[in-house]
């Protein structure tokens, strides 16, 4: 295991809020313990994240754009990319009923970003975006059945 991998692991454990993690491979054994009360510190340290959320307020402004673009789409739908279902199953917009949607209209997606889950026979499939762009439309309702190749999202790549 490389040093930077170990550093990443420590960071991950600290953030996860779990008190003790033990990793064992053929050559090494690592035990990471987070002392009681430390969790709060981690939270305090992660507070600088909050301002960036505020900074991301322009996202709200961007939401206005798709509306304009949607009008354009009437004459020029071809510029949008349709994300289709790779399988038959049930379409879910979040990882569980109490969690927020992976993506909403106006969100930017990049290659590899999880956009939905399709479940079939208790197998849950996270679908990653293969395109970069902005979600213009969600074409299917949460928790409804989808067919193979059925359009799920419209993405504006520009």
């Amino acid at each position: 295991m490389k040093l930077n991998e170990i550093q990443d692991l420590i960071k991950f454990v600290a953030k996860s809020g779990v008190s003790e993690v033990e990793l064992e491979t053929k050559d090494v054994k690592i035990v990471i313990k987070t002392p009681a009360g430390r969790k709060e510190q981690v939270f305090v340290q992660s507070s600088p994240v909050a301002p960036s959320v505020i900074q991301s307020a322009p996202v709200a402004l961007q939401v206005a754009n798709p509306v304009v673009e949607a009008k354009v789409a009437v004459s020029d739908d071809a510029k949008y990319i349709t994300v289709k279902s790779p399988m038959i199953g049930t379409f879910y917009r979040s990882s569980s009923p109490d969690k927020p949607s992976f993506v909403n209209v106006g969100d930017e997606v990049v290659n590899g970003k999880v956009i939905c889950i399709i479940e079939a026979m208790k197998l849950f499939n996270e679908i990653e975006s293969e395109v970069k762009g902005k979600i213009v439309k969600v074409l299917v309702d949460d928790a409804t059945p989808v067919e193979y190749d059925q359009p799920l999202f419209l993405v504006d790549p520009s």
Partner: protein
Amino acid sequence: MKTLFVGQNSIHVESVGSTNSYATEMMRQIELSEGSVIYSFSQLNGRGQRGNFWESEPNKNMALSIVLYPRFLSVDKQFLLTKMTSLAVSDLMAEILQDYNKSANVSIKWPNDIYVNDKKIAGILIENTLKETSIQSAVIGIGINVNQKEFNSTKGAVSLITLVELEFDLQNVLERLCEFFEARYLQLKSNKLERIDKAYLDRLYRIGTWADYRDEQGVFQGRITGVSTKGKLQLELKSGELKSFSLKEIGFI
């Protein structure tokens, strides 16, 4: 551990909400090798199917998530992951009960619950990541009732301790499960699909016997004849008609 890769890299988490969620989160940040196992004996919030929870007392049961990269498997064949995992878990249950000369019947209740007689002893939750139509990674979550003696809410749950009347070494149960899992995964990888299909059907709960089921039209009698490639349950009805059902279309009575 007497395996080639399953469990060779193991991560023990003292207590955790769900090992699957933990594994998925970890994979976003650290590269985990194939066969890496994230396990805990105190899974507090084990997840079943959406919204269902797995009831577990601390330090009594086993929860683990196995990381796989089954890129050789296309999306439409993903039910094979359910089959091989159900088989591995039921293989272990059958062996343990045999070790103690218990003649209980181990079966797989479609699609992926492990039963001993008429009660559930283990559950499986598989989460894949897809890119186009191939599976990039799979997190195979398995929960087994081991040393828990009483179950409150769950209808018909059972554990190893209630069956054998002996406390089990959880670490040992984990290692043996990894061995069975690896054997079944290698079967899948080497394309021995007929063997997997046959073994799954041989273990299928209620196969070949008439029983009551429920669909949206009401209660009916049927006899399970098999499972389709995509995982649908196939039943013969009293009229002689053959019908297949997906998960939400049928209930066992």
